[in-house]
């Protein structure tokens, strides 16, 4: 009898050590990620690096739009929904998603852009608000040429629009009509429009500012990564991974990995996002 008990105990101990050992080595499970197309490249890179370390985790990553991220988490078709804003709070145009938890991915700076021929270099927040709400309609009113201002906006649901409206325009309601107003269907169309329209004003991710356009200072502060980090330039937002409740298991391991030093100082920086640790 005693012998059997000892053997049983030994076997149990052996098995439990084995189990603990296995758990410490890798996690397993499956993670589905859906949402923001702006965060998609970063998520794909994270998937590559994470599954190399944890081969027993099956991951599927896709990108459609910011709002589809929290939506698919709420419907249970994805464990992580990427979103360009914190979907657990109310933002202009979108109600909060109750029960979802926001986990930061990286910070994304945005810039106000005008055509490179435009002499204006700086706008105050009030001037921007007045331009986007239609109170100021001529560049001469803000120290530029005597020319009408062409307001270029992004479509409803764009993460860039949500962040820009909240941070640069203080949540103001943007005009919806007029001959000098248009909505661009993507960042690419926004860039091309500002590049080819002499009197246009628009906004875009800072990393997409290229030739033919220039980024304006905001309240006298230039839009640079350094100014975002020292908090003098306020037009930026975090990208988020939304989860249903606090993350657990493989999902938690993945989020920890994305927020960890290796990934933040590696892929996040390389892809020109700002690591979350950089902003105090």
């Amino acid at each position, binding site marked *: 009898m005693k012998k059997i008990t000892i053997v049983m105990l030994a076997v149990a101990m052996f098995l439990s050590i084995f189990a603990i050992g296995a758990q410490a080595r890798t996690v397993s499970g499956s993670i589905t990620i859906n949402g923001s197309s702006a965060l998609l490249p970063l998520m794909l890179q994270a998937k590559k690096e994470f599954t190399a370390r944890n081969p027993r985790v099956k991951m599927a990553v896709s990108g459609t*739009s910011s709002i589809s991220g929290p939506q698919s988490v709420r419907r249970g078709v994805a464990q992580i929904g990427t979103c360009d804003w914190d979907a657990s709070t109310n933002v202009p145009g979108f109600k909060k998603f109750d029960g979802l938890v926001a986990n930061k991915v990286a910070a994304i700076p945005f810039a106000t852009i005008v055509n490179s021929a435009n002499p204006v270099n700086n706008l105050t927040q009030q001037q921007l608000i007045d331009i986007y709400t239609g109170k100021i309609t001529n560049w001469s009113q803000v120290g530029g040429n005597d020319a009408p201002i062409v307001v270029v906006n992004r479509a*409803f*649901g764009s993460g860039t629009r949500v962040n820009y409206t909240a941070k640069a325009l203080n949540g103001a309601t943007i005009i*919806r*009509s007029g*001959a000098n*107003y248009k*909505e661009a269907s993507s960042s690419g169309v926004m860039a091309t*429009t500002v590049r*080819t329209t002499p009197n246009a004003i628009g906004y875009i991710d800072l990393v997409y500012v290229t030739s033919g356009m220039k980024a304006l200072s905001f309240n006298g502060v230039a839009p640079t990564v350094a100014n975002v980090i020292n908090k003098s330039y306020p037009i930026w937002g975090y990208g988020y991974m939304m989860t249903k409740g606090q993350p657990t298991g493989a999902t938690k391991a993945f989020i920890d990995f994305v927020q960890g030093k290796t990934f933040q100082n590696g892929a996040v920086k390389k892809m020109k996002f700002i690591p979350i640790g950089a902003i105090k």
Partner: protein
Amino acid sequence: MQQTNSTASKMSGRHWRLMFSDQVFKWFCLFSAIVLCVVLFSIVFFMGKTGVLTFEFVKVTEYFFSLNWNPGFDETATYGAGIFFIGTILLTLLTLIISVPISVGIAVFLAEIAPTRLKETVRPILDLLVGIPSVIYGFLGLTILVPFVAKVFGTQLGDGLLAAALVLSLMVLPTIGRISDDSIEAVPQKYREAAYAMGCTKLQTIFFVVLPAARRGIVSAIILGMTRALGETMAVVMVIGNVPQLAESLVQPTSVLTSNIVMQIMAVPFESTWNYALFFMGFSLLVVALLLIVFVRIINNRSEVQ
């Protein structure tokens, strides 16, 4: 036929094998046809079913006749899709006004006037044009045409119905041109000979004999071009400006059914009036396109009967 027992049994083995493979193939073909019908039916049914939910929240008259498209998730939301219906109709008409004369001109030139060698070069070029992906037209429209239109009209923005109609015209030109070309080519040579024999000039022959004889083919070419113009999304969304307002001029940013659907569908929750309203727009486009295609079939059948 005389057969020995062994060849007879071989033959019957082969016979059964053939019978079997024939049957399998027949059922496979039937299955393929049925799958296609089921898919088409389910698309129409699903779009319609989701779309009509709109009218639980929005009055039918408001949806079709109001010009105030201000969707949202609170009490102040309005769903007047009238602007988009008007925009689509205007855009399609403008496209046809620009493209039909030119494409029928091309067809007449190819079928009646051009020397054989030129015909053989231009026809493959038109066929290639049909195959260019619409995003390329849209991109060229955005980078070249829109700034050009703005310069010519002296406006700040070049986006609008004119830019979209020009891009669409270029897209439907080869479609209308080639089908019209074929139908003009199909007019029997004796018609032309009879016309010449009665002393008609070439111009008179083309206008009073050839074109009327090819009328049905040209009309179905135009309708097929029209369905392409109606449903084109990618190219249009890049040059129309995407503002839900009624265009006061041809160079003012506006919106049509397809461009509005693609701009907004990704951003709206699944179970919302907004989503249903967008689905109904899609359903309307689908129904119009199907009706136009049925119309083409009827025209073609009647011309065969004649």
